């Protein structure tokens, strides 16, 4: 009991985003050097990364899935069950099956090779929803990319079930990051099915200004080494609606932003602190304030357009570089875990997870 309370209090310190003091930047695709890393086939990785790049994804966080298995027979069973659910939803209402074409009826769960990096990480899962004619209606990726700390600590929490102690890791699969694309109605049906089937909680991730400034600091200096470097764009929104001016967008040349970041973070290491992030964005906003006399510090950042991808505060991302898919997904997995609510495992005497 005491050990549970101590572990839970440690989780509370890790959430939410503002409490994070430093982060590590993952540069490119992971190299198979560490003992805990999987042997990843380059062909599989490229195929999966190509599927993810150049598409706009909405991201969600998901609590651990209860009794979710990624073996072939289980995925087949899930595909059958979800297809039946979607077909039933599509046929609701006066016997006219017009919704089937919009929401889709055929669900296919497959393992997405090349995303999971650590050996003790669950396989990433891809779910596609198609219509009967084979037209794609929605796509989902459920993954966990180098989400180390939580999985490791979760395994140690003992859970009383039927009078015996079991390891949580055996009962739950942690795939905290969901990437979703496609029809909203389909998404809603899929999420409801997952919640019912695997007793999980799915929440939309929205990037706060602080999250976006972290991304800017971590990735603005990453160059794709192309002939013409893309500029870094930051968009600020005017917090008061309908006054005539909606957004202010600034684009910096790659050289300028690189010089600025080198001054903030001279060591060049992959570990970045929150002070460096605050100084970086503070310097940019102060520079613009001096020119325009507009208080940029009071304007919320709404989107970033970097060389490796686009990031919007509504939780939408678009990765533009195949080599940096793991870079982005590692950070997003970390954010997804930070957003998960661990208080259900807190001070109650009965430590059985609530259903």
């Amino acid at each position: 009991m005491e050990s549970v309370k101590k572990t839970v209090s440690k989780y509370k310190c890790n959430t939410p985003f503002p409490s994070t003091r430093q982060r590590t930047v993952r540069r490119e695709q992971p190299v198979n050097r560490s003992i805990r890393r999987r042997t990843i086939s380059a062909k599989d990785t490229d195929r999966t990364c190509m599927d993810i790049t150049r598409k706009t994804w909405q991201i969600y966080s998901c609590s651990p899935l209860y009794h979710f298995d990624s073996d072939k027979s289980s995925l087949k069973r899930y595909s059958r069950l979800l297809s039946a659910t979607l077909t039933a939803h599509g046929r609701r209402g006066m016997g006219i099956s017009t919704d089937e074409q919009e929401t889709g009826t055929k669900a296919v769960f497959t393992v997405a090779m090349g995303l999971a990096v650590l050996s003790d990480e669950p396989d990433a899962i891809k779910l596609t929803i198609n219509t009967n004619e084979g037209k794609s209606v929605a796509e989902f990726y459920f993954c966990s990319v180098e989400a180390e700390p939580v999985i490791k600590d979760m395994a140690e929490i003992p859970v009383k079930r039927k009078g015996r102690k079991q390891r949580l890791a055996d009962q739950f699969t942690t795939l905290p990051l969901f990437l979703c694309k496609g029809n909203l109605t389909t998404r809603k049906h899929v999420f409801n099915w997952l919640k019912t089937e695997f007793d999980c909680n799915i929440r939309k991730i929205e990037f706060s200004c602080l999250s976006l400034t972290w991304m800017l600091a971590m990735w603005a200096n990453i160059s794709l080494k192309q002939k013409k470097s893309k500029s870094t764009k930051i968009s600020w929104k005017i917090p008061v609606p309908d006054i005539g001016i909606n957004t202010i967008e600034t684009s910096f040349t790659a050289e300028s932003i690189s010089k600025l970041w080198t001054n903030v973070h001279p060591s060049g290491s992959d570990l970045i602190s929150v002070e460096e992030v605050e100084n970086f964005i503070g310097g940019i906003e102060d520079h613009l304030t001096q020119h325009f006399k507009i208080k940029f510090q009071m304007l919320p950042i709404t989107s970033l357009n970097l060389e490796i991808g686009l990031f919007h505060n509504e939780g939408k991302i678009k990765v533009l570089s195949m080599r940096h898919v793991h870079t982005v997904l590692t950070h997003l997995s970390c954010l997804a875990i930070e957003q998960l609510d661990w208080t259900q495992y807190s001070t109650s005497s009965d430590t059985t997870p609530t259903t």
Partner: protein
Amino acid sequence: MERRLTRILKRFSKIEFKYLLSKWGKMPVWKIDYTRTKYEIIQQICVTAQECHLKMEDVFYLELLYVIENTNKKNWRAIKMNKPLGLSLDDENFEASAFKKCLKQKLFPTSCDVQVEEQKSALWGRISRLNSVYGLFFVHFPYSPYVLVTNSSLELTSLFMKALCFVVGYSDFEPIELVSNHPESLAQILLHTQNPNEAYTYDKGTYKPLPRHEDTALHRFDDTRLEICHMNRMVKTQKIVKQQFTEKLQPKIPFVNVMTTTRFRGKRFIPTADDFNLECCTCLSGNDVLEGLRKLTLLGLTHGPLPKFLTSIGRTGLQNFKITDRRAVDTDRSSA
């Protein structure tokens, strides 16, 4: 003809049908049942148009009327004609039918369709090649060297401008960096506020800046109790705003682009930053940027008075700026 007519009619809202068709005057308006759905009204109009043997020219004229009523659906660019030839023109030359005839004569070798209508103290027109359905719309202000055009192919724009220069007596033209989807705002800048000493009287004050009504209470997104504590500052801010933006309504500009290549000015946060030039391009956008800047100042989201290049856009008519650091001028020349 029917396809083109259908495409144009689809842009209309249901309320606009009766008014625009009456103005068009090419078909009996009483034949159309306006209580039906929009699709059915369009079908009826197409059938009636065939019965009345309407041509493509009539359809283009209808399109021009639609654009005149919905000017903000197009992006208008300003062009200035230079080197006047000293032609003596009078009001007869600027009558719609006479102007159309002259323009068509000058465009003759290339066979273009021309439609002209006089509205709101200006000449509104549509030019397109005979076999093309895509046209260029223009607004010319009589007795002024200015014309506003919509986006079109360079070839057609150049062809039209040469013909227009011949008609109104100029030998050259150049585009001005002024773009807006409100042609009245561009007219306000070009005809009145840019050169206030050169009075333009043909429009009889149509495009003159209107006085601003009293500001309704702007919603403060922070604690309203602060208004009492900062009353003096608010009064001071209102004085500055009145001085910078005057008591007339500002012209509606959709964007302002500012390119800055200056020394880094954020040393308060990054004191170790070397003296390097930070290159960036900032775009302020919205449906009425100048009014937005004025309200930003009133809301307390600015530090003191805004820079002159932003507040004088309404007078100068400039939308794109480049700012660099001023070079030090060494006036003390010692002997070599």
